[in-house]
């Protein structure tokens, strides 16, 4: 590996690290990397690094805030020349939330979206993030943000958010 390639690889790793520290504005326990919306950090033909970001929901008001926060984090660390690009295809789904992201959601009190494998083997099971019971019921498919649905636990009786599965 040449010195130039080595330097660019190191820069890309550094950019990933910086983005891992950018929180989602509505669920700050998750970083935008946990959320699965950073598609790539790669070097373009002109040598500049490009970051691909994908929106979660078309109308999510956080999309612009996320872009600004990522820009600010990169600029502050001396990566002002890194380009941010919007990527639409393939569309984001809750399957892009990383395993670390799912664990953070559950610890924060938001039931994470079931993994694709679990969904394909039977009905959707949403566990209460407080008591762990699977005796839960959906109150509404719509919650406090586009990505969440409103649930209630039939055992501990607590209401909770479920990160919607799309």
């Amino acid at each position, binding site marked *: 590996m040449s010195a130039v390639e080595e330097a660019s690889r190191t820069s890309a790793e550094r950019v990933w690290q910086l983005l891992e520290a950018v929180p989602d504005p509505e669920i700050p326990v998750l970083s935008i990397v946990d959320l699965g919306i950073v598609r790539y950090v790669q070097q373009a033909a002109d040598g500049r690094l490009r970051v691909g970001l994908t929106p979660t929901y*078309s*109308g999510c008001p956080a999309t612009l805030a996320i872009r600004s926060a990522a820009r600010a984090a990169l600029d502050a660390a001396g990566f002002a020349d890194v380009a941010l690009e919007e990527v639409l295809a393939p*569309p984001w789904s809750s399957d892009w939330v990383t395993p670390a992201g799912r664990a953070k959601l559950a610890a924060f009190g938001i039931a994470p979206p079931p993994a694709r494998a679990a969904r394909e083997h039977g009905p959707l099971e949403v566990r209460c993030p407080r008591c762990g019971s699977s005796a839960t019921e959906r109150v*509404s498919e*719509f*919650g406090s943000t586009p990505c969440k649905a409103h649930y209630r636990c039939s055992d501990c009786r607590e209401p909770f958010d479920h990160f919607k599965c*799309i």
Partner: protein
Amino acid sequence: MSAVAEPGARSDPTLETARLRYVLRLADTSLVLGQRLGEWVGHAPALEEDLGLANLALDLIGQARLLLGYAAELEGRGRDEDALAYLRDAPEFLNLTLAEQPNGDFADTVVRQWLIDAWQLEIYGGLAGSSDERLAAIAAKSLKETSYHYRFSSGWLTRLGDGTEESHARTQRSLATLWRFTGELFAPDEVDERMSAAGIAPALPEAGGRWQERIAADLRRATLQCPASHPYPWHGKRGVHTEHLGHLLAEMQHLQRTYPGARW
């Protein structure tokens, strides 16, 4: 194959004019319906439905932004998505006439939403395989959202139709009021035919047949009667609107018209 990758495609003026009009029709339908749903915020029958309608509105306005951004590029006259949304007059809007109909009561809103959700399922579903890569990407993303919009609206249609005597009667009345605007949904004109011949958009007669089947099945489940077809075709997608669109735009565009160029 990508439309962008074909060097000859962009130099065909009739195809490009049709493409712009087609994208504006989709964009304006989402924008106008999103604006209508926004009027419910703080007024819906229950908190959950208030949040649900606001969520639908957000998704629709998000879809409209993606589509208007594309339309602005296709138009190439220096207008951006905001100029297209806030600075066009009613005859330049190409939304389906159904989308601009007033919210009425909750049954009117549910019936309007369900008819358009089922339409979007067919249109976005077909566009997801479009030869126009940009439209295909927007459609694939929007289709995920339309799927749960349709769960919401068809679920409420069943509950209202198969609910109390009052909710049944009101929903049947909403159907009678709004059905006249459905003739436009799948009646192809030269723009639709051009798009479908170029492999960009789905063929409307086939899509319309699937829509009819879905609508009929949902109505049976909701114990509602399908109204007779209405002979008069509305032409919102040609820019001919009911009086309601002007009032909606007066509110939506008020700020930009009063303070041109105002920004956050």
